[in-house]
């Protein structure tokens, strides 16, 4: 039934490499996964050049922030049958996209001592440039979801991530609601679950790194925050952290 091992490439654009590290950190599970998957390109672990045979799956981490990256992602798209945007940056631009809301160059000169060497424009998710077949959510991605995705693709079936919210997982963990008890704005109610409510279960609010779940109502959440006395400044910062909640891809 399987047509041999799944040929996979792992690519990185503008990002911190944290999502690739999740793959590396699968450790023993990775060995199991490699029974079904052949890594044809993975710069983090090998110096091999870009493969010249077509790939079954490209796992792409990072946002597109300049022309070279734009060319790169089109090249990757062309050589891959199935393209996965892995992590917040690839999905929506991620933290990189915070700078989209400030004048060009401002963020660079705050961060770098010699910003003239930085070639970086607005940051976008991959779907601004190419068709994306599937998303892995989070900053970084979730190892379990990565495994399930690869195992599903290995039998030539599109992957599935259940459409529940972080808020639901937080409840299942029996946590007291941080927003309702401490008045701190939490994005759990509108954010794609699957992380097992990692942040709120450890006492900090959800930052929305997994993106907005289709069918949820961020405007309603914003209203709830306003009614609870959260300052407009804080609301703005919170909503734009992962590249502006209202512009976010929703699944």
């Amino acid at each position, binding site marked *: *039934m399987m047509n041999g091992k799944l040929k996979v490439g792992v690519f990185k654009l503008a990002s911190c490499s944290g999502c690739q590290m999740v793959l590396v950190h699968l450790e023993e599970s990775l060995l199991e996964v490699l029974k079904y998957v052949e890594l044809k390109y993975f710069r983090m672990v090998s110096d091999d050049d870009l493969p010249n045979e077509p790939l079954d799956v490209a796992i792409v981490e990072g946002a597109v922030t300049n022309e070279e990256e734009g060319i790169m992602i089109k090249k990757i798209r062309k050589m891959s049958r199935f393209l996965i945007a892995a992590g917040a940056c690839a999905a929506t631009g991620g933290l990189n996209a915070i700078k989209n809301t400030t004048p060009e160059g401002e963020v660079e000169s705050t961060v770098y001592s010699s910003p003239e060497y930085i070639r970086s424009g607005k940051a976008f998710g991959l779907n601004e440039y190419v068709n994306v077949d599937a998303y892995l959510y989070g900053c970084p991605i979730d190892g379990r979801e990565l495994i399930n995705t690869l*195992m*599903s693709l290995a*039998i*030539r*079936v599109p992957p599935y991530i259940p459409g529940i919210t972080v808020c639901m997982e937080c409840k299942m963990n029996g946590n007291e609601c941080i927003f309702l008890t401490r008045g701190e704005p939490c994005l759990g109610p509108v954010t794609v679950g699957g992380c097992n409510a990692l942040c709120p279960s450890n006492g900090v609010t959800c930052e929305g790194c997994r993106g907005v779940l289709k069918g949820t109502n961020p405007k309603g959440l914003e209203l709830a925050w306003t009614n609870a006395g959260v300052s407009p400044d804080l609301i703005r910062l919170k909503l734009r952290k992962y590249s502006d909640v209202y512009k976010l891809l929703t699944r």
Partner: protein
Amino acid sequence: MSNESENPYLPAFAKVVEIRDENSTTKTFKLRMLNNKALRFRPGQFDIISYFGVGESAFSISSSPEEKDVFENTIRKVGRVTTALFNVKPGDILGVRGPYGKPWPLERVMGSDLIIIAGGMGLAPLRPVIHYIAKHRDLYGSVDILYGARTPGDMIFTYEFDSWRNIPNTRLYLTVDYVPPNTKWEYDVGVVTELLKYVKPRMRDTNVFVCGPEVMMKFTAQLLLRMGFYPSEIFLSLERRMKCGIGKCGHCQIGYKYVCKDGPVFNLEEIGLLPDVIE
């Protein structure tokens, strides 16, 4: 159905004995239960097929109820489970639960004329009805089958159309929304409800079975009511998300009805006033 004491979530095993292409996105899978079991079903019931590792999906049983040792599911490739099923080869083993749900009311409408109206894949749960009538022809009056699809290439069971036309006192009318260039088509073009112009129903002595996309069923039901049919004479088979088939998982509810156990075949009278019936 299975024994009371058995785990209703436990699939039985069935072997794929034959796979037929219906069209470019639809295949019919002929299955045989293992361990000398048989799936005894009535026309309109559904089963739940497991592809282990991917999941389960509910499908109308599309074969003749007269065939005792094999049964068929006609499946369109639309999601994960169906994608996995399209990779299956004859000889492979699948999981099967069921049959579930209320069948078409073939006893209740005995002796009356029947109009069968199907759109696209909606012919799948009606094919067992047609086979049943062919076998028990004297139990029913005149039968009109009205079938519409998007294009000629989207039709299913086309290889049986001639034999359906040969059933005594039975007529088959076909229509498509659109005929692509260089496609041979000698029947109607237009929506399936337009085929009702060919039918002169004997009012109060005719029942209608309808299955197809919800919007097609909505327009069909509205037209039938305008023609003078009572809601109690119109039966529809509905599709909903289902995770269990036995009224536990909750997904298929429409108002207080469960499509899995109160349906999938409903009388229009039962569901006419419920919310969320039509998308």
